[in-house]
């Protein structure tokens, strides 16, 4: 527990977070189905030791593994989602929110922290895919904007780990406009001369890829991450085209010129710190 945790009101504290990989001694790789020892998988940052598949990972675990130990404190944690449209489909949006909050221990689908990576001061945001498919509504947009504001105020670069199905339908046009809001925030970050590194993880699609996802000064992806505007099912349905193997995967995007690099999760700290140090004209990280 960092000092900051002690300052937080207890209802923000999230002792019992649901992990992206269910509890139990053994875990099955979501790609090659190998039976993996949980502790070993965790040590390997949820990368399958057999096939190197990068399994999905929760926002807080992500931030914890990326930032220097105990260096992080959360930004804009107190923002609570609302239901401006009183949206109801088969379930009420209110109930979906409550359920997602219970399941993940998060208030919404983006967690923002200021901290250091290899001693370089940064602000890092990470999407929680387990929270309504990491969808972007008003809170995600506002947290992103405040993370940018923090960067500008403290002259720090921004790193974003995205994992999102896109804009959140239940907040309708408010969600769509978060694309414009986050992009405008990044315009300001750029004007302040501060770098933005976008790391797209599996999956990053729709309104998130079409805004903050692909607006990095440097655009990175994790191996095999699905990245695209339309989801594969939508493309197949609307266009009647069958998608070839590996279409919209990170490797495909790299080949098409859409990415700067693919970075193995286990090297993310080293690679990103080295990029940031150059962009910020700092000495080579140790």
């Amino acid at each position, binding site marked *: 527990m960092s000092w900051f945790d002690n300052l937080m009101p207890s209802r923000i504290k999230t002792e019992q977070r649901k992990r992206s990989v269910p509890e139990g001694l053994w875990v099955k790789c979501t790609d090659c189905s190998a039976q993996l020892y949980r502790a070993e998988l965790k040590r390997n940052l949820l990368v399958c030791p057999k096939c190197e598949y990068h399994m999905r990972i929760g926002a807080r675990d992500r931030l914890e593994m990326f930032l220097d130990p105990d260096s992080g404190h959360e930004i804009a944690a107190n*923002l609570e989602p609302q239901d401006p449209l009183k949206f109801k489909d088969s379930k009420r949006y209110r109930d979906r929110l409550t359920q997602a909050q219970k399941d993940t221990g998060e208030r919404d689908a983006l967690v923002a922290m200021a901290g250091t990576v290899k001693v370089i001061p940064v602000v890092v945001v990470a999407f929680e895919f387990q929270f309504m498919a990491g969808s972007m509504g008003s809170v995600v947009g506002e947290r992103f904007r405040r993370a940018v504001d923090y960067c500008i105020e403290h002259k720090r670069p921004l790193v974003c780990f995205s994992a999102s199905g896109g*804009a959140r339908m239940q*907040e309708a046009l408010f969600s769509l406009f978060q694309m414009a809001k986050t992009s405008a925030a990044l315009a300001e970050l750029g004007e302040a001369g501060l770098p933005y590194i976008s790391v797209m993880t599996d999956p990053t699609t729709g309104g998130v890829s*079409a805004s903050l996802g692909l607006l990095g000064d440097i655009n990175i992806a994790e191996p095999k991450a699905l990245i695209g505007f339309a989801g594969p099912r939508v493309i197949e349905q609307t266009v009647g085209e069958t998608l070839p193997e590996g279409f919209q995967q990170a490797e495909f995007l790299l080949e098409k010129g859409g990415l700067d690099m693919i970075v193995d999760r286990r090297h993310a700290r080293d690679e990103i710190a080295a990029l940031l140090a150059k962009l910020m004209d700092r000495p080579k990280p140790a």
Partner: protein
Amino acid sequence: MDLKFLDFEQPIAELEAKIDELKFVGDDSELNISEEIARLRRRSESLTRDIFSNLSSWQIAQLARHPQRPYTLDYIRLCFDDFQELHGDRMYGDDPALVGGMARLEGQPIVVLGHQKGRDTKERVKRNYGMASPEGYRKALRLMRMAEKFQLPLITLIDTPGAYPGMGAEERGQSEAIARNLIAMASLRNPIISLVIGEGGSGGALAIGVADRVLMLQYGIYSVISPEGCASILWKTSEKAELAAEALGITAERLLKLGLVDGVIPEPLGGAHRDSRGMAEAIKNSLVSTLSELQVLSVGNLIEQRRHRLAGYGVYKEG
């Protein structure tokens, strides 16, 4: 051109058919039919007024997609003078689903661009049903930059089911093309007005829709996802599109109340397609007055106000 009537307009269609019949009979009949026609016309008008005073979101969506609704190039012809279309993204191709160029609004040079749907089958295919590809968005960006360079106001007309979800579009970076426009439009140093003339379909619409003023026609729609798409995901069947349309709050009236659009331009009775000239006149007046509000601002103020608006989008609670 014969008017096409939507399902919910059938009572009006029947009356209009009767009027047409009478007109046909009228020529060689001794009866004084003109009075009867006038009576039926009045009835048709009041019936239209009745039906249109209480439209559901789904009915408005159908109007927004009406096959006879005026499209971007129709309004460009009717609202502006001296339009010269400019083509191509200088990188890959020219996208007929997104058109643009320079024109004059009451004498003032402007850059105008918008999604373009096709009127008949052949043109629909050519225009890809108004679904733009990355080269369309990149052409738009090129024209926006030109407008900025020469300090010309930018007017964008939105009318698309969405950005094209095809393989080629993905390969050429559909997401990147859209994202690039969003960040560029947040910073352009010239006034921008966006007007939803028909369908405002998600990211494909927003990619030319970040503006100093966002306006909508009365029967336009603007949505994060099509009602059909939303229904098939959340209700597990696209047949619930009517419910989804209501839930998503896609109409101009609702979005104005929510503070997400800045103004709504009323349409002629029965919709824009009933009187495209009248509609164009109203659009022109609105563009002229909106532009004059923006042109008194310094570039610094303009961008500051735009950024402030963008930062203000969203509803959340601090606590």
